[in-house]
């Protein structure tokens, strides 16, 4: 195996760990309902 492939794999693993750390800290998971911020709530806002 080339050293380059090994280094690339380790970098990739580092990125995966970074993603895990950051996403967990943010309470983020993919494929879930990501809330879009709406304008200020008004009464009966579903019928705007």
């Amino acid at each position, binding site marked *: 195996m080339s050293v380059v492939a090994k280094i690339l794999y380790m970098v990739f693993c580092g990125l995966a760990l970074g993603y895990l750390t950051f996403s967990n800290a*943010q309470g983020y998971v993919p494929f879930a309902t990501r809330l879009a911020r709406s304008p*200020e709530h008004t009464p009966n806002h579903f019928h705007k």
Partner: protein
Amino acid sequence: MDNQSPPPTPASLVQTKAINCPACGAPITLRALGSSVMVACPSCRTQLDVSRPQIRVIQKFKEAAASFELTLGSRGTLRGKTYEVIGAMRRFDGGYPWEEFLLFNPYIGFRWLLLDQGHWSLAVTVKDISSIHTSYAGIQYKGRDYRKFHAGRAEVGAVIGEFYWRVKKGDKAATTDFVSPPWMLSQEKTRDELTWSLLQYIDAEEIAQAFKIGVPERDGVAPHQPNSAAEALRSIKIPMLLTLALALAIQLGTIIRAHGQHIPLGSYTPSTDRSHEVVLGPVHLDARRSLNELTAYSAVNNGWVELDYALVSKVTGQSYEFGNGFEFYSGRDSDGAWTEGANSASVLLTSLPRGDYDLVVQTDWGNASGADPQAPIYLSLTHDVVPWRNFWLATAAMLLYPLVLAVRTWVFDRKRWSESEFNPYPKKE
């Protein structure tokens, strides 16, 4: 390979000598004089006994001289040592031929180069045969296990150059090969002798560079050819295990930190006025940013519920809108009772900021009977739940490349062993 252990070759004793072939008159240079006992004329391939001052013809050949991948007298530097090709022979096992070259360096002695289906090996005679032991899978030599790969009968088909034992066309030996890539131990047995050779697989490019020849076309996988995917897998094993352990540690940290707090939000019976909004809460989310799971439940039967939500910040008044729904049907037919759907549904809300919120719910519903809804809807929120998806995604990403390497390792080894009569893999029908 060789039918006799090579003689010791102290450099001081090594001399060269030029003779003429008694059959064709062609000049022959004896390069390992004192060690060589026979030489095959490179021109007419007549085999001569050179062990005594009086040169004697052993066997005459009438065929055209065979061509070999390496020419006699050519020199090459291999692994830092310069060798000269002094002998070459072609052998075959059934209809399967290969070439063997005897290399000589006066300070090191004899080595062998083998060319088999475009794959090269550098071989040396094993002198300490006592360190070869039989083991469960095959044999063991210097702490390495070798698996039996092939047993056959090798016959000399053509020979040129000089050798340290008498070799002639038609010489036969029973051979058994044991492999442990990149090594192979080859046993040769004749009526008089038993010899072992240790072969190391060598890249064809290395030989081409050393002897200034072309790279022959390779056919299939050699018995002891290194499996590059297996080597790659071995080299990333420790980083892989370390990062997996780190991922597990991060996830454990998240599990310990996460509140996983269950907050009942309340219940209500849906109104016949579908535009009616119910406000539940307030609910306090104390994690800075968190993953939350909102669950709606109702004992609805043969009906459906659709819920539109707005999570409204009590501080800013801003709202986050989302929705979910569920349906549940049951009945009885000729097969008995049946049910379909579910009485609850959950929705994961990612990255919710800390704060106090009201949950505004608008409910749409329907049922088979057309009657007004009777079953109340219960809503609850689990605050700061453990995000497992990230862990599984990161783990899958880290295992993807090793998995590809594992498959490639398996395919390569299967191909290697498909050439063996001791193939451990199940054969394709």
